[in-house]
């Protein structure tokens, strides 16, 4: 088994220093996501707030895009953190990786400024190239798409070249490379324009679904495998076997589970059965992860070298299962989806699933990194404040998703089932007291999440500065 301990003697690898920059930018974007989410949540309560200046559409664009980018950056940061440990050497092409990283950071800044100050453009190709593409989640203008592809290509080069240079393709690296090739190829399916809206959405889902419900899940599997080896010393053979099982189940169910997005967009009827069947099986790998998490937590009596990271890892397993599995299953069968598709219920699922599956993973990685990058390395790591942030995050996200779920039920029943899906029916549902009540709860739980975020940032900074609990381990410089 390769040692999972940090590089000894000379501090961190260059790749790990780059990972720290990735995590810092990820956390800043996380803050932006929450801030714009709060603005959008407040506009649900008072639609006149900032109307015409910073309308809902703009806040929502930044909210969603900041979320995608910070999570992806966090996951990539995790790879840059663990790759030199896995291969026992510095990452090949690290200078190139640093260069393109700062170009990407500048590019993200430009894209956000354009979203905020230009907002929309005329119906021409120039708008799609330079302002935004107007396709939810992948709004980034075409020039930014090309920059993202270049960025992922360098990342892939780093991983493949480092693996080859180490002359040992471990199972984890094999899965990682396989997954990154798919992830990069799928993004390019979203870089196109077509007037046929059915075809447009058909391929749009190749990016959106096959990223978050397939390739991202596997990437998370690899990162959690490394995290568990570090946190608990889990044997490589065990995590690799679980990872293979997970890939078999995630790709085995998720690729055709894509069909649950093809029920109502104009695609043929066979997708109704296929999408319903395979997407109903999609929670299987998530159940497997919960079983593993419960076993690990019990076997180690909740002891690990890094307490906050370990708890976020446990949260990840449960959150992924509940958010993606339970809330997804709740509305994935076509018999209910006909009524619930395109309602607030989808937003409930989205919030809970992204939090559980991806926020949980990235925060696990961030805590592992900050433990080892701190001025004073403490093992096992513990602090007084992490548990406050952790508890508020969990309470906040479940309160938020609960509020969304209730308004989703009202919309499903009142707008769709009862009143016939029209504009008037839509207004009748969102002015229903059962719906309007939830908007205040939603905002309240949003504030709670923001408080959790502030404590998280404080906690990470204080660990970095060396003010944490645990046995001090001096790192030779």
């Amino acid at each position, binding site marked *: 088994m390769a040692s999972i301990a940090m590089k000894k003697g000379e501090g961190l690898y260059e790749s790990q220093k780059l990972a720290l920059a990735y995590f810092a930018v990820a956390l800043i974007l996380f803050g932006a996501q929450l801030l714009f989410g709060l603005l959008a949540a407040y506009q649900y309560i008072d639609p006149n707030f900032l*109307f*015409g200046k910073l309308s*809902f*559409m703009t806040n929502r*664009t930044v909210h969603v895009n900041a979320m995608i980018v910070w999570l992806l950056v966090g996951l990539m940061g995790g790879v840059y953190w663990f790759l030199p440990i896995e291969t026992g050497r510095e990452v090949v092409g690290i200078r190139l990786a640093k260069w393109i990283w700062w170009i990407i950071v500048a590019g993200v800044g430009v894209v956000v400024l354009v979203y905020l100050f230009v907002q*929309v453009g005329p*119906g021409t190709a120039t708008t*799609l190239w330079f*302002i*935004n593409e*107007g*396709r939810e989640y992948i709004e980034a203008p075409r020039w930014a798409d090309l920059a993202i592809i270049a960025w992922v290509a360098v990342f892939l080069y780093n991983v493949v070249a480092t693996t080859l240079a180490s002359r040992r393709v471990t*199972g984890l690296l094999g*899965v990682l490379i396989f997954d990154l090739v798919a992830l990069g190829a799928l993004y390019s399916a979203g870089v196109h324009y077509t007037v046929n*809206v*059915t075809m447009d*959405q*058909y391929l*749009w889902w190749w990016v959106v679904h096959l990223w978050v419900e397939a390739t991202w899940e596997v990437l998370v599997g690899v990162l959690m495998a490394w995290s568990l080896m570090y946190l608990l010393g889990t044997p490589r053979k065990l995590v*690799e076997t679980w990872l*293979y*099982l997970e*890939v*078999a189940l995630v790709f*085995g169910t998720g*690729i*055709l589970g*894509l069909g649950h*997005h093809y029920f*109502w*967009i*104009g*695609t*043929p009827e*066979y*997708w*109704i*059965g*296929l999408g319903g069947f395979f997407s109903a099986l999609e929670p299987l790998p998530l159940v497997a992860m919960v079983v593993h998490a419960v076993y690990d937590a019990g076997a180690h009596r909740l002891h690990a070298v890094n307490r906050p990271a370990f708890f976020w890892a446990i949260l990840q397993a449960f959150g992924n299962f509940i958010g993606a599995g339970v809330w997804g299953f709740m509305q994935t069968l076509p018999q209910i989806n*006909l009524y619930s598709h*395109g*309602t*607030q219920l*989808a*937003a409930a699922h989205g919030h809970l699933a992204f939090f559980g599956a991806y926020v949980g993973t990235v925060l696990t990685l961030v805590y592992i990194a900050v433990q080892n990058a701190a001025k004073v390395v403490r093992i096992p790591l513990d602090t007084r404040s992490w548990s406050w942030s952790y508890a508020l995050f969990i309470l906040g996200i479940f309160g938020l998703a609960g509020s969304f779920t209730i308004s989703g039920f009202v919309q499903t029943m009142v707008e*769709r*089932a*009862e*009143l*016939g*899906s*029209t*504009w*008037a*029916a*839509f*207004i*009748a549902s*969102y*002015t229903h007291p059962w719906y309007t009540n939830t908007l205040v709860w939603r905002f309240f739980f949003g504030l709670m999440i923001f408080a959790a975020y502030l404590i998280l940032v404080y906690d990470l900074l204080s660990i970095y500065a060396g003010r944490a609990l645990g046995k001090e381990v001096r790192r030779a410089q």
Partner: protein
Amino acid sequence: MDYSWIQIAVAAVFISAVVTLVLSRGYGWLSPTFWRNAAVVSSVVMTGILLWLTFDTQGKIRPGAGRVPAWDVINYEIGLKWDPEKRRQVPVVGEKTGFFGQELSNEAAYKLINRGKMTLQGRNCMECHTILGNGAYYAPDLTRAYQDPWWAERLMPMLGVKTREEAIAKWLQNPPAYPQGKRRMPNLHISEEEARALVAFLKWMSAIDTNGFPPRFGVVKAEQ
């Protein structure tokens, strides 16, 4: 395609299982090799089936092939009717009335719908509305918006115009001037030409066969 979804689903699972078992002869089901084979085989089999279905779907969603209408459908009246066999609404193409009273060639209709689609993306409509149910849930779904009874009942008298097409085009150019409900649509400075193109796109989209989504469209009048 001559296969039902059940046949495809059973075949996908069966092929994955059998190939995995054959490749893993001699290994127990708890060994890493067994699951590595399962991972590779299921990924390859499912991707292969997805690609095959994509080719089939692509043929069926070509404009004019049946499910997605031809571009010049905007020259006709469009409505929905209940299909008692399928137990859902299906779009129906009615009399030829022209688009804004003018008959367009297929080519001219395509250009207009294309401009409408670009405007839809350029104005980021999906960040409030849903289109075929996908988007941001803050504003009404646009799949059948062209056919919404609201235009005839409220907006045609309010805007002083005689047709649905004129009502949509006029309203889109300055929505906050005629607020509908508590949530207002901002003024996105949509030009008259862009507004007409958007009407073309919305009209064309409202004739797509979406397997009955959104359900029971317009069958009940909301109580105000």
